[in-house]
C-alpha cells in the first residue's frame, strides 16, 4: 500500500467556514475512508485567516496570508492509503469540496526516514 496526501484548495475565503450540513458531509466522506481502513492520517485544517497565515519570501519579505499573488489557498490535507494513484483519485472524487468550487491535489507521499 502506498500513501497519498490529498491537498484541499479553495478559491473563496468565505467558503472556508463550513455550514453544519457541509461539515456533516465532510465528516461522512472522511469517516467513509476510515471505514475502509484506508485513512493513514486524518490530517489537519490550515487556517487561512489574517493572523494565522503568513508567507515568508527571500530577503526577509513577509506577507499576510497565502493569497496576495495566487487566488487559491490550501485549506487542509489528509493522507490516505491506496494501492494506486487511481484509487486515491477515486476517493478524492467523493469529497464535497467540488460543490463549492474547490479542488483536490493528489500527491504520493515519499516518506523521510
Amino acid at each position, binding site marked *: 500500500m502506498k500513501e497519498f496526501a490529498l491537498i484541499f484548495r479553495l478559491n473563496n475565503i468565505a467558503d472556508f467556514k463550513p455550514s453544519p450540513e457541509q461539515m456533516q458531509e465532510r*465528516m461522512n466522506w472522511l*469517516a467513509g475512508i476510515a471505514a475502509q481502513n484506508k485513512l493513514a492520517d486524518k490530517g489537519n485544517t490550515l487556517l487561512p485567516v489574517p493572523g494565522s497565515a503568513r508567507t515568508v519570501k527571500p530577503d526577509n519579505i513577509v506577507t499576510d496570508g497565502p493569497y496576495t499573488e495566487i487566488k487559491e489557498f490550501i485549506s487542509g490535507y489528509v493522507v490516505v492509503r491506496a494501492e494506486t494513484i487511481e484509487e486515491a483519485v477515486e476517493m478524492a472524487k467523493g469529497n464535497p469540496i467540488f460543490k463549492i468550487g474547490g479542488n483536490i491535489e493528489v500527491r504520493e507521499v515519499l516518506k523521510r526516514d
Partner: protein
Amino acid sequence: MQEKAISHKELLPHLFRQEYTKMTAVLCRHFGLKHIEIAEDIASDTFLKASENWALNGVPENPAAWLYTVAKNKAKDHLKHLTIIETQNETATDKIQAEHNFEFNNQNITDSQLAMIFAVCNPANSTEAQICLALQILYGFSLEEIANVFLAKTETIKKRLHRARTNLRNDNFQIRNLNENEIQSRLDTVLRTLYLLFNEGYFSKTNNHLIRKDLCSEAARLTLILTENQLTNVKQANALLALMCYQSSRLDARTNTKGEAILFEQQDKSLWDKTLIEKGNFYLVNACNGTEISKYHLEAGIAYWHTTPADQNKWQHILQLYNQLILIEYSPVTALNRTFAFAKVYGNKQAISEAEKLNLTESNYYHELLGYLYTEINIDKAINYYERAIGLTKSRAEKQTLAKEIERLKEKKGVNRHKR
C-alpha cells in the same frame, strides 16, 4: 433435612462464584502475588469444607461470614506453619511477608479486588491471555467455562493460563499498596480488558444465555469498583460503565425463549430495563463533565441514542458518533455499524455503495448488512448475500435467524410473481 440439603446445593455455586474471587483477592493481597496458589488453595479448601459441613448441618445463618471465618483461620494456620519452617530454615528465600492479622471487611475486599484487577491487566501478557486470566481470577470461571466462552479446547486455555500465571507471579506488582503511578501506567489496559470482557458476553460466541449474562454483569461490577475509588474514578471509567449499563438494559430483550437473537428493531422495548438506562444516564453525565472524549464516550453516546424513542434526528446523531469513533479507532464492526446508521440517514441505495467499499468479504456481518440493504431493492441479491452470511457464521442461532429471513424473502418474491 432434605430441604436443607437442596438449598445448600443451590446456594453453593452461586456463593462460590461471588465469594471465591473476593476471598482469593484478599488473601493474595495479604500473602503477595507470588503466592497466589496458596491463596487459591485456602479458598478452595474453605468451599470444600462448606459443602461438607452444610450438607450435614444445614446452611448457616450468614453463609458469607461463615466462609470468611473459616478462610481466615485457615490462613492463620498456614502462616503459623510457615513461621515454624522459617525458624528452622533461616535461609528460606520465599518468605511470606504477611501480618497475622487481617480482616475480610468490605473495604479490604473492595481494595483487594481493585488491586487484583490491576495485577491481572499486566501489559506483559497478550490481550487474550489477560482475558483468560481475568475470567479465572476475577470471575471465578472454571477451565471448562472459559473454554466455552472462547469455543476453544480446555487444553489450549490451560496452556494460555499457565504462561499468564507465571507472568503474574513474577511481576513485581505491588498489590498491597496500589499507588498512583501503577494505576496510571495500567489504567488504559484495565479499561480495555473490562471492555473486552463485557463484549465477550454481549456478543458472545456461546449460546448459553446465563454465561453471557454473568460475563456482562461481572464486567460491570468490576468497572463499578473503579468508579468507587478516588484514584480510578476517571471520566473514561464512567463512560465505560455507562456503556455497560445501556447495553445490559437490553440483554433480556435480545434473545427469545429459544435463545435466538432478536434484531434491534423487533425487540420488545417494554423488556428494556429502565433502572439500568437511568444508571447509564447517571454515569454518562459524570463522564461528560470535562473535555475528554474517548471511544467509550462515543460508544456510550451511541448506546444512549439507541435507548431513546424515535427522535427524528436520532440516526443523524448516531451516524455522527460513529464517524468520530471510526476516526479514533478502525474496527470492522464499527465500519459495518456506521454503514447501517448511514443507511438510516441517507437511504439503503446510497448505503449499498458505502457498504461495498468496505470489502469485508470474510465477515458474515458484511454479507448480512448487504442482504438487509438489498431487501427492498433486489430480492435475489438480498437472498444471495444472506446465503453467503449463513455459510460464514458459526453461530447456530444466527444461521436460523438468517434462514427464516431467506424464507420470508422467497415467499415475498413468489407473491410478487403471482401478482404479475
